[in-house]
């Protein structure tokens, strides 16, 4: 278990404000935050590369001042930082000169097999593709038998065609190699597939942390909801609630129009502003007063409605489909 207490760090304009969080052992923990919000610096602090204020504990032992080489935390940078003066094999086995690796040969064989590296071992790292570099960097970090793996946007430099395969490998790492993963990314889709727990960090503060599905489906603040791509965020007063500070959200797939609106807990008159046909569905933007709703209607259902741009029509949805924030 990694525990951060009042982690504080400032570099130029960027600041992390007294972060408290806990990463359980064997967890796949994703820190979600915008690009350029200092997530790399946070990971470097945890690895011991950047000095910090506050305290860091690993399994109740304080490690705040421990140098990186004694923390046993593996690190994978966004652009992998493979050592140019070693070939692929030399990169992967780098750690064994500095610490005893339990069952090194077996681990090496297993990594080569798991990450599909057998044809690359004697290659110069200059001649690898992005995806290959990524696998080598992962193997290098795992070969050191880290207590925890720190991954900095590990999928952002990968060709989309290989991303799914690498995501599948990443998900397996914690159990296969008996380790804990702390993964930072700006991509909530990545997080929804990989994470056991998620912490959302915006403007140097952790706004929400919890089990992945909980954070992804029940954001506790409007900032988190926006960041997670929630559409249709409106004041709860629109539905007749009298709590001023609350918001509600409605899934674009659950909004119905026109003839499909015979029953519905909430019902508004709207003006259809724009209809955009996208592969198998239509994106529909409709205004209710000053609020602009966004809905998705499958193409098969469109035929049964008389929706067209400029039309005034009923818009409705059910109480069970809204989320209160």
């Amino acid at each position, binding site marked *: 278990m990694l525990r951060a207490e009042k982690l504080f760090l400032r570099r130029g304009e960027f600041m992390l404000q007294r972060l408290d969080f806990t990463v359980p052992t064997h967890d796949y923990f994703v820190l979600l935050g915008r690009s350029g919000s200092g997530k790399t610096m946070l990971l470097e602090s945890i690895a011991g590369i950047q000095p910090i204020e506050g305290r860091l504990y690993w399994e109740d032992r304080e490690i705040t001042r421990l140098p*990186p080489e004694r923390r046993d935390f593996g*690190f994978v940078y966004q652009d992998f*930082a493979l*050592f140019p*003066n070693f070939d692929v094999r030399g990169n992967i086995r*780098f750690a064994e*000169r*500095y610490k005893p690796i339990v069952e090194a040969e077996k681990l090496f064989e297993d990594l080569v097999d798991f990450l599909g590296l057998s044809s690359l071992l004697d290659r110069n790292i200059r001649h690898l593709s992005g995806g290959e570099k990524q696998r080598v960097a992962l193997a290098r970090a795992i070969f*050191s038998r880290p207590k925890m793996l720190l991954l900095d946007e590990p999928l952002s430099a990968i060709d989309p065609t290989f991303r799914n395969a690498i995501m599948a490998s990443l998900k397996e790492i914690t159990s296969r190699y008996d380790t804990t993963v702390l993964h930072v990314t700006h991509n909530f889709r990545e997080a929804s597939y990989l994470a056991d727990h998620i912490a959302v960090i915006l403007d140097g503060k952790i706004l929400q942390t919890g089990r992945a599905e909980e954070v992804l489906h029940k954001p506790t603040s409007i900032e988190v909801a926006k960041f997670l791509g929630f559409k249709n965020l409106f004041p709860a007063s629109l539905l007749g609630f009298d709590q001023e500070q609350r918001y509600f959200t409605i899934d674009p797939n659950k909004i119905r129009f026109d003839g499909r609106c015979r029953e519905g807990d909430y019902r508004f008159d709207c003006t259809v502003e724009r209809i955009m046909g996208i592969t198998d569905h239509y994106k529909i933007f409709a205004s209710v007063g000053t609020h602009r709703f966004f809905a998705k209607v499958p193409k098969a259902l469109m035929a049964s409605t008389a929706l067209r741009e400029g039309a005034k029509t009923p818009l409705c949805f059910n109480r069970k489909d809204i989320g209160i924030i």
Partner: protein
Amino acid sequence: MDNRGFYALFIFLGSIAALFLIAPLFKLFWGVGAAGLTEAFGDTEILSSIALTMRTALAAVAFVALTGIPLAYLVARHDFPGKAALESLIDLPVMVPHTAAGIALLAAFGNGWVQRMGLDFVDSTTGIVAAMAFLSAPFLINGAKEGFKKVDVRYEHVARTLGAGRFGVFWRIALPGARQEILNGALMMWSRALGEFGAVVIIAYHPMVAPVLIYDRFNSYGLKYSAPVAAAMILVSVVVFILVRWLNNRSNRI
């Protein structure tokens, strides 16, 4: 001016520069001839002078490599108060007149405390090495500094997370990454040290390094007797230079 006029003028001017640089060396070897060179290589005074020059220049490079490379690493990796001033000071020896540097070295090291440590300075190889090191160190230090700056600091970070301590990271990541620049800097420094005359002659007329021997023979016997020494010295330097480059290129390919 049109294309042809441009190239005609530039090739003409460029040829003058090239000829000016090549002609004296060519004339020197032509004048000395194969027989003169053979004779020079049979002259034990010339041979021991060239050997002394090589040895002392190498010692100067070794001294600066041992002390200046760590300095270069610190400057490349860290910001600290006075860093800009320090970097200018490192460059200073390139700008001062060599005889003035010789006087400064003599004032600093010639008056007792070096001798009390059991080292001779005036008219000794220690003094020669000091003169050479002082005037040509910036080539190696600056080369190493540029080399270290080119090594992505994140390689060092990753290496540390993999268990390597500061020394391990320096040996296996930083130094190999900066190798090319360090080697070029060392070669530059060494070739400059071979030719050092002004500071050396102030500190140590004897034992005679090759530039001093050339000057001595020229003064005492004239051009005819100094030319073979000069030719022999140039030949040896060029051969060593090419050899080191070749060895380095070969090891880079592997």
